[in-house]
């Protein structure tokens, strides 16, 4: 039987072996954490604390009135020592709260719900919202919002995304191995909240043990299906995942709810379970620190706000010659200017690339029209034309080639024999014209 998948896509070497064997561990507690007030898509939070104030672990330190937002919590117990702008991995300066860790790990009071499956959807959503949960796959969209679709968009399916199609990253993989039951519980909570009867877990087939574990965990759930997916980037992109599992295609610029689906990352499902069952806010997440340039690749249960330099140290530092550090995966992650940026809710990995793995983006050549990018674009666009038009300054014309349907997965640039920085050209064009 051939595995479920989508049309197009690429097969970069997955390099997951670097960190796949490393069980999730907790790093040495950081001396201080820098918690950005905006780690999610939507309105930034306002600080609820002031400099000098003592806070407990799990205490809310920032909230926003807006519907599309998510509160932030302290990931340590200690004292607020500064509130000002700090850089985040994506390069921008964001107002952040700096807390000095007193090392006591004193929790604020958490509200447990042992009979969580009997809560009403509204109560569950309230808990999820209060816990500050956002999509942990990278986009960091507030989860409670995703769980409140408008009435005219009925939802009938929940999909857990365990594809982890970005090369190198193994955070979701380790979670599926180590916490399969909890993840399935999270899925059940999601299904109950949305009132749907069909749940999927999609996992790329390069993680057969994770598929096995999740199947076992879901064995008694007749309406949850754990599916092995073809190993192909970007299998974990929402549109591609939904296509593979349900054969539904989200229309251009549409959302999963347009085809009756809600997608959540497996890590998010775990966070949901912990929030609903134990009242635990989202103050830590698994981060894969990996790549050929780091001494000991690890999967670390990291407090939000921990500086990346701290994690690099925890993993034995750079091997000599390390030249690039990426927050996220190699296909869509951001190269860091500085290691003194905090892990945020959306940071799934830290990739340390050695000199030999680097691409020299400036040495690109003209498009030779080989058609490779057209063949593999998962959105079925013509990346060659997008790059050529953008390069020549014809941004309006690029719209005729569906510029705004490109989700910058990078597959086209990966295969291009002329090494064209197609994603860069696409971003340039997008910034120059209105959709």
């Amino acid at each position, binding site marked *: 039987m051939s595995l479920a998948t989508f049309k197009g896509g*690429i097969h*970069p070497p997955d390099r997951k072996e670097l960190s796949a064997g490393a069980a999730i561990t907790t790093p040495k507690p950081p001396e201080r954490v820098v918690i950005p007030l905006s780690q999610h898509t939507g309105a930034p939070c306002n600080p609820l604390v002031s400099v000098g104030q003592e806070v407990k672990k799990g205490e809310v330190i920032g909230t926003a009135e807006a519907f599309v937002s998510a509160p932030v919590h302290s990931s340590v117990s200690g004292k607020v020592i500064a509130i000002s702008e700090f850089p985040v991995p994506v390069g921008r300066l964001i107002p952040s709260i700096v807390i000095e860790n007193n090392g006591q790990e004193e929790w604020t009071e958490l509200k447990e719900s042992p009979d969580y499956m009997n809560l009403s959807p509204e109560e569950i959503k309230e808990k999820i919202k209060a816990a500050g949960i956002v999509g942990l796959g990278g986009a960091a969209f507030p989860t409670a919002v995703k769980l409140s679709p408008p009435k005219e968009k009925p939802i009938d399916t929940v999909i857990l995304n365990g594809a982890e199609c970005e*090369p190198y990253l193994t955070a979701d993989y380790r979670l599926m191995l180590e916490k399969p039951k909890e993840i399935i519980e999270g899925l059940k909570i999601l299904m109950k909240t949305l009132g749907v009867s069909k749940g999927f877990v999609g996992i790329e087939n390069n993680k057969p043990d994770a598929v096995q574990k999740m199947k076992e965990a879901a064995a008694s759930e007749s309406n949850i299906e754990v599916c092995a997916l073809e190993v192909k980037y970007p299998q974990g992109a929402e*549109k591609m995942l939904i*296509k593979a599992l349900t054969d539904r*295609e*989200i*229309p*251009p610029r*549409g959302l999963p709810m347009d085809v009756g689906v809600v997608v959540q990352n497996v890590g998010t499902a775990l966070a949901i379970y912990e929030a609903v069952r134990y009242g635990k806010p989202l103050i830590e997440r698994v981060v894969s620190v990996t790549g050929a340039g780091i001494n000991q690749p690890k999967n670390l249960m990291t407090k939000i706000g921990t500086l990346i*330099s701290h994690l690099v140290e925890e993993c034995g530092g*750079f091997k000599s010659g*390390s*030249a*690039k*550090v*990426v927050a996220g995966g*190699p*296909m*869509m*992650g*951001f*190269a*860091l*200017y*500085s*290691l*003194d940026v905090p892990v945020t809710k959306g940071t799934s990995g830290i*990739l340390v690339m050695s000199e030999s793995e*680097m*691409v020299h*983006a400036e040495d690109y*050549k*003209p*498009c*030779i*029209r*080989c*058609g*490779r990018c*057209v*063949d593999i*674009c*998962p*959105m*079925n666009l*013509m990346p060659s034309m997008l790059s050529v038009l953008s390069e020549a300054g014809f941004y309006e014309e690029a719209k005729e080639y*569906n510029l705004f*349907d490109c989700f910058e997965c990078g*597959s086209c*640039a*990966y*295969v*291009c*024999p002329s*090494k064209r*920085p197609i*994603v*860069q050209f696409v*971003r340039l064009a997008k910034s120059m014209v209105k959709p």
Partner: protein
Amino acid sequence: MEAVKKERELIVSVSPHIRSEESVTKIMWTVNIALLPALFMGVYFFGLRALFVTALCIISAIASEWLVQKMAGREITISDGSAFLTGLLLGMNLPATAPFYIPIMGSFIAVAITKQLFGGLGFNIFNPALIGRAFVLITWPRAMTTWIEPTAALTGLDAKTTATPLGILKEEGLEQLLEIFGTKMNLYAELFVGHRAGSLGETSVIALLIGAGILLYKRYITWHIPFSFLGTVAVLAWVFGGKDPETGKLVLFAGDPLIHLLSGGLILGAFFMATDYVTVPTVRKGQIIFGIGCGLITMLIRLKGGYPEGVMFAILLMNCFTPLIDRNLKTKPFGFVKKKEGK
């Protein structure tokens, strides 16, 4: 602080941060290598003169590229293998007897005018090697249509001139061709091996297919253009290629597609020149149209035109249509059809 020290070593660039191993240079040199079996057969049949002509083409092509890039102050790209490829393809499309100025002029036109004047690799509209060949064919028609028997290397004697199988087929008919080659099976076999008069690198079908196999296997080319091209030629040859031996009148559905497939520059053209990325459509559907168009024009020229062979003009003509095909066959984005249905 240590972190600050490290900062200066960090390199920042836009995603993706990994790239495939494929490069233009690698592709070009692979195509060059894939052509070598056919070149070897050309030298075997037509003698060292064939090698001389090809080498002269390659050297002139590279020199032209270097010269133009130097004069224009552009980056010198002669090592990427594309000028080499243009020279090699042009050489393989010439008679082994071509006088020295033909390779030189042909390569100059191909590289300096057709390719570099349009802005270099990626910007040319026409296949450079074919323009070079068309130019020398029109300028020196006699030299370009004088063919020798494929015996030079075997006998060491000056080979006799003769016509190509397609020429004989056109002027004197199938019967004459069979008289020369004996049985039909023998004719096929000789054409397949390449033991016939023709351009020095086009004759050996088997050697060309080996090279084409390499490119297909490496996915440097796909089936779309060559197969639609060859398929169209085969169908048209079968339907319209038959003649009544007595009256010379057209007899439908009586042609011999195999002779047409195995002779002329068809195999070389279909697999190595109609697949030149730069000058053909990028979308697969467009490539099939391109291939069918090439087949149609080839057979139109072969059966009705003034030349016995039409592959070169067919590809060049279709090159003109490439922008039009590309513009009209934009891909539809993911999810597009569903959206229309929903409306």
